């Protein structure tokens, strides 16, 4: 099958575009970069970007399931994502229900803020 999805943006450039794949990127209006205001926002942007890269490359791999180079890259990104998730949760509290950081009392899953709160 014809594969036009060879060249990838780096995870940050992909994340701010909403598309990891240069050949299918369709620009409309501006590209909005992030200016994190504190350490938490900076780490969250880094986590968002890695998670996004995994999601987008994952969709691609659902179809091109024998692209070994991309599978290798996916695993690299995923490893880094897990490392950053751990660092984020250790500093700012759990964001997944299976988190190792839910081991304390009081239960911290219900801590504010929630994702839709500025």
């Amino acid at each position, binding site marked *: *099958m014809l594969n036009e999805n060879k060249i990838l943006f780096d995870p940050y450039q992909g*994340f701010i575009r909403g598309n990891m794949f240069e050949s299918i990127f369709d620009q*409309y209006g501006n590209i909005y970069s992030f200016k994190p205001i504190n350490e938490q926002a900076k780490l969250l942007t880094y986590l968002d970007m890695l998670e996004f890269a995994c999601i987008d490359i994952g969709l691609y791999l*659902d*179809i091109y399931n024998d692209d070994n180079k991309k599978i290798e890259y996916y695993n690299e990104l995923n490893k880094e994502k897990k490392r950053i998730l751990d660092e984020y949760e250790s500093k700012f509290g759990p964001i997944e229900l299976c988190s190792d950081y839910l081991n304390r009392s009081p239960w911290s899953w219900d801590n504010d803020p929630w994702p839709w709160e500025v």
Partner: protein
Amino acid sequence: MWKYVKKLEYPVNIQKKDLNMAKALMAQYGGPDGELAASLRYINQRYNMPDGRGKALLTDIGTEELAHIEIIAAMVHQLMKGASIEELKQNGLTAQFVEHDHALFPVDAAMVPFTATYIETSGDWDADLVSDMAAEKRAKVTYENLMKMTNDPDVLAPLSFLRQREVVHYQRFKELREFYKQKYQKKDNQ
């Protein structure tokens, strides 16, 4: 099963109230090509995909659309936050206030309630994938129209992200359909 991650796929931090925009954005919440419809459509259709590729792709795009419902909801919530009754009245949100106060409810931009027919499931992989491609195109156009309604970068950034996701989803559905047409020897007129 599904797991929740306590963050958005793309952050939403809107500082300025904009009730007109909140109302317009409902198109992508409870509208026919909105994120709720898209999510349920793909998650429903996946049972009829002929092999693992399609089941995986529809599951994963359907899951991503769930995260998009959350982004739209966060945007509407923040755009409406602190609006007075008078402000809601002036922006065509009287019905919203009377029936739902400031709460989210799946309607479109004209307050038409979400309906299950938006979930378009035929049981035929080709018919479903063609309709999914069209739905992604329509959602992309809706995002472009929404982007014409505002100058606020806090609103434009997530809209631009969501619009681009429709571009990618369209492409993946198209590639899956091409793959299946070859695999199952199906022509366009069949």
